[in-house]
């Protein structure tokens, strides 16, 4: 008995340093963070800093760059293609986000009704978001083909147009075409997330409003919208960020053409940096997106704070 107790004491002493380390939450916490932090520092934080630096150099692919300060930004400021891409990005983001929000909210309200096969309908609605964007963009490319577009064919048969529409050859046609493809892809995301928000609104609120004789529109205006506004802010921030930095749709459908009419900042930076080999200039274009992104995030963050405060929550 005594021997056993002795050996147990010895064992405790021997292992105490390790045990204490492993019971210390700070040490163990640090160990648990190692895999995630290692990957994120090496492939996220470091490249982010490297990108800021590259934007201030004249690095070319395969060469070492020289620090040129704001040289890239000065030459970009005189570059009409860059300004066109800024205009296109803003137009693309606003046009697509507004329509995505309108259709998405409408679709969410429709899906919130009592429906047969509701979960199946919801699963089908989300399909455009699940399927690889590039692959569905290929389908849009074919739909917008100048000779074999099905839209042109239908409109022609219906007698609405006299010759085929050149969807991707004319600057404004091309812009609206890619906006339409982006709306198609983004609506399911907005609709399903807003639907999740709608389902959290207690039906008793609507019943009370019904008893008070509220109309459909009043119930929407005074119950649905205020209850939904925090999630609307988050969803639309995500949607705006995704649209603003979009690359896949444009690269697949138009490659920035015709004559740069649909180039977004992301596609232009790819063209300059990877296709053209001017890493520094491309990085400067990507960096020029950062102020817009920060502004969008801050706007939604402070909007959320304000709406929380209005609803009587704590900060």
């Amino acid at each position, binding site marked *: 008995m005594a021997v056993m107790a002795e050996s147990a004491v010895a064992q405790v002493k021997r292992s105490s340093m390790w045990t204490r380390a492993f019971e210390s939450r700070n040490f163990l916490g640090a160990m648990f963070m190692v895999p995630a932090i290692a990957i994120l520092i090496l492939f996220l934080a470091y*490249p982010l800093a490297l990108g800021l630096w590259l934007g201030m150099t004249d690095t070319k692919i395969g060469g070492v760059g020289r620090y040129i300060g704001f040289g890239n930004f000065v030459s970009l400021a005189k570059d009409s293609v860059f300004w066109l891409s800024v205009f296109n990005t803003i137009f693309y983001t606003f046009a697509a986000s507004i329509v995505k929000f309108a259709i998405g909210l409408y679709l969410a309200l*429709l899906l919130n009704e009592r429906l047969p096969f509701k979960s199946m*309908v919801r699963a089908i609605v989300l399909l455009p978001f699940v399927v690889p964007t590039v692959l569905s963009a290929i*389908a849009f490319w074919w739909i917008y083909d100048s000779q074999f577009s099905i839209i042109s064919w239908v409109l022609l048969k219906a007698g609405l147009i006299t010759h085929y529409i050149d969807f991707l050859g004319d600057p404004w046609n091309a812009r609206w075409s890619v906006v339409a493809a982006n709306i198609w892809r983004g609506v399911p995301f907005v609709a399903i997330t807003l639907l*999740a928000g709608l389902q959290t609104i207690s039906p008793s609120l609507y019943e009370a409003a019904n008893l008070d004789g509220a109309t459909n529109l009043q119930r929407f205006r005074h119950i649905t919208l205020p209850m939904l506004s925090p999630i609307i802010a988050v969803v639309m921030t995500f949607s705006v*960020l995704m649209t603003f930095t979009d690359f896949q749709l444009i690269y697949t459908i138009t490659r920035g053409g015709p004559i740069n009419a649909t180039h977004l900042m992301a596609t232009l930076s790819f063209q300059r940096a990877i296709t053209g080999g001017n890493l520094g200039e491309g990085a400067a274009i990507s960096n020029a997106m950062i102020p817009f992104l920060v502004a969008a995030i801050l706007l939604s963050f402070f909007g959320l704070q304000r709406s929380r405060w209005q609803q009587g929550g704590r900060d």
Partner: protein
Amino acid sequence: MTTTDDQSVGMDYLESFPRRFLRVYFPLGLIICFLLFPFYWMAIATFKPDAEMYDYEKYNPFWIVHPTLEHIKKLFFDTDYPLWMWNTVIVSVSSTFISLFASVCAAYAIERLRYKGSRYVGLAIFLGYLVPPSILFIPLAATVFQLGLFDGNLALILTYPTFLIPFCTWLLMGYFRTIPYELEECALIDGATRIQILMKITLPLSLPGVISAGIFAFTLSWNEFIYALTFISSSENKTIPVGAITELVNGDVYHWGALMAAALTGSVPVVILYSFFVEYYVSAMTGAVKE
């Protein structure tokens, strides 16, 4: 947030069927047609012989008269498509598992060990989620090149976790938060180590969360495009989206049939997986937004 499961009939019975049809079913049907049409068009073009595809006068473009497997055959035997498919599977599966492992550890440490400064690390990881790949790909290409990973699967396997880990960690933190502390305290008193607690209590209880994160991460990496386009140059190392765009277009000659076949067959695996795990997928998507 809780979902209300309302079984009450409400005031629907006051509405006549034609009225309800006009207000709900008709617009819903219209939107669903708009959302599904590109898929229909993709499928039709995949099985349509070239003669019908380029002749709208003789054949109705909405239907196939003589369905054919010619495009799929061309895709599978005359191009590197099987290799792209293989690469996509390898890259998606590996990056998903790496991200899940790292995220489970990180989320457990942030949420349950609550080490000094864990709140700030959690916030920093969330900020990482907001960094879009399109501002990261140029310096990341330089990093990948420096590390000698350029033009290989490993370049993608190691870079995809940059957008998967922040997302998965954030989602899992939410799930871990719902598990009662008392369970862990009991286990601690019984002499379990932290790792045993994680493996035997926390993980099994948050399995739905882990599955949600895994499914979503898998589809995200299957769909990824800009990194794969930038870091991979030889045809046999490409993933499906990149291969389809770059290799199936010869100058001005578009092989529309093969392109559509690639789009369809590249989408089918994700859609099948999604159809089995719709609820998990939706909870991952909405969970990341709601927190």
